[in-house]
């Protein structure tokens, strides 16, 4: 695990504020007690611990925090938030960091995770519901990791856990409107 070198970034003073407004969480409330990181079930796989992610935000160290793997390994299980004495909504902070990193075209430290999320959302666009078989097939095509988990896929298939046909929303345009509206930049508002 990396020990962050503390270099408060004077050029990125606005970054802390940007994260606070986007997530609706006052990251200034964190006093680094590390309860979040002690509770986190996936901290051992992260480059920065959850409390360190918050510290990087506090110090405005934009590049370090937006390119770290921790923001992509957080699954939003809220274990940290339950431990947090100042009730910081860590999942909301992580959501804000991930989406800022994508918009500002930072290199994604866990591209496979992002690819998976994109396939789930594509499936929702197509059917209004998540079609697992297709999500997995397309994910495999994108990541080119065909052999990994082949046996898991086959076992699930043989137990009829992967339906061939998707379960669909009938009024699919109601779903697609949410996507179109975003692309149009909310002119309908």
């Amino acid at each position, binding site marked *: 695990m990396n020990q962050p070198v503390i270099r408060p970034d004077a050029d990125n003073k606005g970054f802390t504020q940007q994260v606070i407004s986007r997530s609706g969480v006052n990251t200034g409330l964190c006093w680094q007690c590390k309860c979040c990181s002690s509770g986190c079930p*996936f901290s051992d796989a992260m480059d920065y611990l959850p409390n360190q992610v918050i510290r990087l935000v506090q110090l405005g160290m934009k590049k370090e925090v937006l390119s770290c793997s921790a923001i992509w390994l957080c*699954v939003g299980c809220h*274990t940290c938030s339950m431990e947090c004495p100042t*009730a910081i909504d860590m999942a909301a902070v992580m959501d804000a960091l991930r989406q800022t990193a994508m918009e500002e075209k930072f290199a994604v430290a866990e591209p496979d995770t992002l690819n998976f999320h994109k396939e789930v959302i594509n499936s*929702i666009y197509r059917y209004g519901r*998540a079609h*697992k078989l297709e999500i997995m097939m397309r994910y495999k095509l994108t990541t080119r990791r065909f052999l990994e988990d082949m046996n898991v896929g086959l*076992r*699930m298939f043989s137990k009829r856990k992967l339906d061939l046909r998707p379960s669909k929303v009938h009024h699919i345009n109601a779903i697609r409107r949410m996507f179109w509206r975003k692309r149009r930049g909310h002119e309908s508002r």
Partner: protein
Amino acid sequence: MAMNHDNEMTYSYFPGCSLATSAKENNRSMLSFCQQHSVSLEELKDWNCCGSSSAHSIDSELAHHLPARNLALAPPDRPLLVACPSCYLRLKSTHMDIAADPEAQKEFGRMWGRAFNPDLQIINFFDMLARVADSGAFEKNKESLKGLRFAPYYGCMLMRPPKMRREPTFSGLMEKVLSSLGADPVQWAHKARCCGTFLSVSRPLVSARSVKTIMDGAEKAGAECIVTACAMCHLNLEIRSQQGKIPVLHFSELLSLAGGIGQGQGWFRRHLIDPRPLLRSRRLIA
């Protein structure tokens, strides 16, 4: 809650993508349990995916509107029962967000052509079960799961974002209900450890480590099976554990079995870790 003439409880029902597909045995056992206890469920017409972890991870706006459409579809006169704990969190927290924001309520009206209903009750399976348990429904099946040693596994369903801290979690309900049916819960350390959700796909080794901790912990505590309340936890525990581990049962399957339903329904054939030898040895199925 809506009561019809013969005192049935009526709920709108949101199954969610997992129960509709990969965890049909969870869905069917839940439906049969409800039928057995005069809980009438009407599936929400044309429901859509709540957005799952993926929408809130990379598109907060979509993560808001997807659950909102389901809220707009819900009939106002009855509670909305959400079968999956993750979907419940998305629907409930979206409802709370809109209720707290007049602008969001206006947008809701514009998008879905109906007024936001601030009084819509959104409940999860545990909430409904607690109501059934309080009515004394399990009194007559006291011995049906006799001696079955289980590890109650809640996963992250006991965890909430800060704004939902005051919502009940029903921690302990699995132990309470299943032990009233004769089963024995084990004490163990990992009942609330997250299964890894999507890391099971994108970082299988990371997820497998967490699953190993959970499965080993249950076995060391002396459990013969793990009981889950979330279809995704169930799938992750099954696909990421090594061969030869103890079976993982859906809570709803055991509840149905206790009431004498489950035999010959094909639920247990769908498990990746075959629970049938255990269930046969306990004479729960033939």
